[in-house]
């Protein structure tokens, strides 16, 4: 081989074939060495492969297929006949699933989440007012006094249904023959006339009404619940000197 540094003017280098190769030629210009790689066989390659998590490998046939192990909430193994799927139950309700079922969400950490939990909370307000023995007006449902409280929906996600309860109690001084009434707005709730011969001091009774607000209260929103305590049918010197009210609310967001 030219310039190979061998002594005696002849090249003593030899080229031999290693594993998987073939060497032909003598190394002369007219017959150069040719090194060829042997074609790889399936039998050879198959022994180099193996299966691991989720992969099933059969060396004899060379078949590679999915065999995913599922945890809670998943079914199937990833094969065409048994695809990987979420494990669900059949819809058991008579109503339409698409119109009524809730959704499942994925959070920023890749954790599955359901709709936010509903809330129930309670609001209570009470006020006692005293007056300087004011005359009970004649007529029906006349202005007495007004009360109010602001109710807030603590749920940041859902609107709330407000169930409201209002109680009132008015203290009357009824001289002999006097009469007086009070009401919740335009609904007279209590009337008493003193048909005796002496004064009744502090005639009163506490009355209650429960109702629901027509409009839902938005997430985090507040509304003012008012209460007008009316007076009426005052006669023969009837007076009032105290009004006590409760305004309570059940706040339901489901």
């Amino acid at each position: 081989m030219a310039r190979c540094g061998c002594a005696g003017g002849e090249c003593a280098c030899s080229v031999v074939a290693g594993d998987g190769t073939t060497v032909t030629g003598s190394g002369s210009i007219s017959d150069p060495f040719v090194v060829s790689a042997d074609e790889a066989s399936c039998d050879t390659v198959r022994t180099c492969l193996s299966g691991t998590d989720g992969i099933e490998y059969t060396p004899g046939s060379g078949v590679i297929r999915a065999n995913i192990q599922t945890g809670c909430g998943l079914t199937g193994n990833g094969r065409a006949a048994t695809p990987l799927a979420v494990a669900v139950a059949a819809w058991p309700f008579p109503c339409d699933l698409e119109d009524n079922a809730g959704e499942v969400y994925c959070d920023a950490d890749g954790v599955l989440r359901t709709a936010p939990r509903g809330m129930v909370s309670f609001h209570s307000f009470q006020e006692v007012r005293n007056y300087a023995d004011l005359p009970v007006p004649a007529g029906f449902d006349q202005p007495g006094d007004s009360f109010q409280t602001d109710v807030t929906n603590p749920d940041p996600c859902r609107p709330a249904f407000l169930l409201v309860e209002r109680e009132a109690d008015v203290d009357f001084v009824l001289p002999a023959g006097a009469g007086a009434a009070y009401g919740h707005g335009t609904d007279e709730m209590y009337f008493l006339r003193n048909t005796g011969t002496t004064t009744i001091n502090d005639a009163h009774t506490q009355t209650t009404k429960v109702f629901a607000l027509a409009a839902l209260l938005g997430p985090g929103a507040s509304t003012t619940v008012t209460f007008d305590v009316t007076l009426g049918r005052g006669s023969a010197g009837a007076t009032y000197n105290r009004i006590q009210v409760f305004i309570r609310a059940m706040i339901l967001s489901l």
Partner: protein
Amino acid sequence: MLPGAQPIAATRKLYVLYEDGSTGLMETSVEEPRLPKPGRFVSEAEHATRLSELRAGTGVRLAELVAGDEERTRADFDALTGAGLPEATARRLSGYEGAV
């Protein structure tokens, strides 16, 4: 604890003097309740002072009414017993309960 049930908020007492002369004693969890008619929040002591005035006024009026009741029922009692009715009957009809 019921899931989703919020704890019931603590309430505190607030005292009000309204411009129309009435007093107010609120018990509420609302941080800054709004007044439905002109007035101002005051101390318990200031509220108690005005409440005493109101109650004293009621007491005076009540005393006048009771005195009037006494005078009227006594007159009725005297008229009834003068007409010959027994004392017990006269008391029931007149409502007079005082000494004879």
